[in-house]
């Protein structure tokens, strides 16, 4: 239950955080007179924008939940589980930021989630079976 709770908060916080950052940065870019695509001034202004700090705070919450999850759950579980966040990110971009998301982009996102799951499955095979080593330790304990 707490796993599901922390996962939900983590994934939600990450999507909300990225949405806030995206909205904040777009607003700054729109209101800046001389729109230089890449300037230090852009980042300095970002640091003075409340929405950016809300976004950063959300990402901190995401990272905190992620780290907390790893204290009891396998990375090989947490990583694919949190990759569903990619889907939420794209959904938020479409719904809250009004970005046009083609079906190709959705297909690509789903493939990425699949790829992450596969990568994590192989990790499960590599580091799994702590029960085996525990058994051996018990056997040699005198």
């Amino acid at each position: 239950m707490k796993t599901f709770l922390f996962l939900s908060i983590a994934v939600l916080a990450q999507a909300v955080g990225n949405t806030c950052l995206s909205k904040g940065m777009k607003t700054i870019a729109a209101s800046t007179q001389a729109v230089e695509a890449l300037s230090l001034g852009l980042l300095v202004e970002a640091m003075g924008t409340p929405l950016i700090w809300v976004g950063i705070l959300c990402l901190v919450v995401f990272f905190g939940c992620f780290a907390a999850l790893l204290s009891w759950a396998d990375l090989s579980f947490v990583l694919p589980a949190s990759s569903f966040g990619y889907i939420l990110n794209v959904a938020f971009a479409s719904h809250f930021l009004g970005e046009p998301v083609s079906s190709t982009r959705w297909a690509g996102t789903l493939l990425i989630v699949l790829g992450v799951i596969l990568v994590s499955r192989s990790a499960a095979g590599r580091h799994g079976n702590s029960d085996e080593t525990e058994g051996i330790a018990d056997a040699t304990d005198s």
Partner: protein
Amino acid sequence: MSLTVLMVLVIVVTNAAGDICITRGMKRVGEIDGFRPGQLLKIVKRVLTCGDFLLGILFLAMSFFSFLAILSWADMSFVVPATSLVYVVALIGARFLLKERVDGLRWAGTIIVCVGVALICLP
């Protein structure tokens, strides 16, 4: 090469470089197997004086600020999935720089991630 593509590469490479440096640094610090305050304080001190770790943090900071910058003009529904390439770059770095063993399934997964990213790049 457009600025957008360049920025995505910067975000991905610096993020992966940061992950690799931090992995190397934390392996040098050693496995954290106790959480008593005294132990934790020692570990924190070792971590904060570890060059690899600090370099890793620097790389991650560069990645984050590049991420902020690109969000000022590019779609989030493009940027966030595109940054999943960090899995691929980190894997290659882990194999050749950290000498970790990477099996076929993991390579297959990363290739699928690449295909997915290629799709989200299409208009």
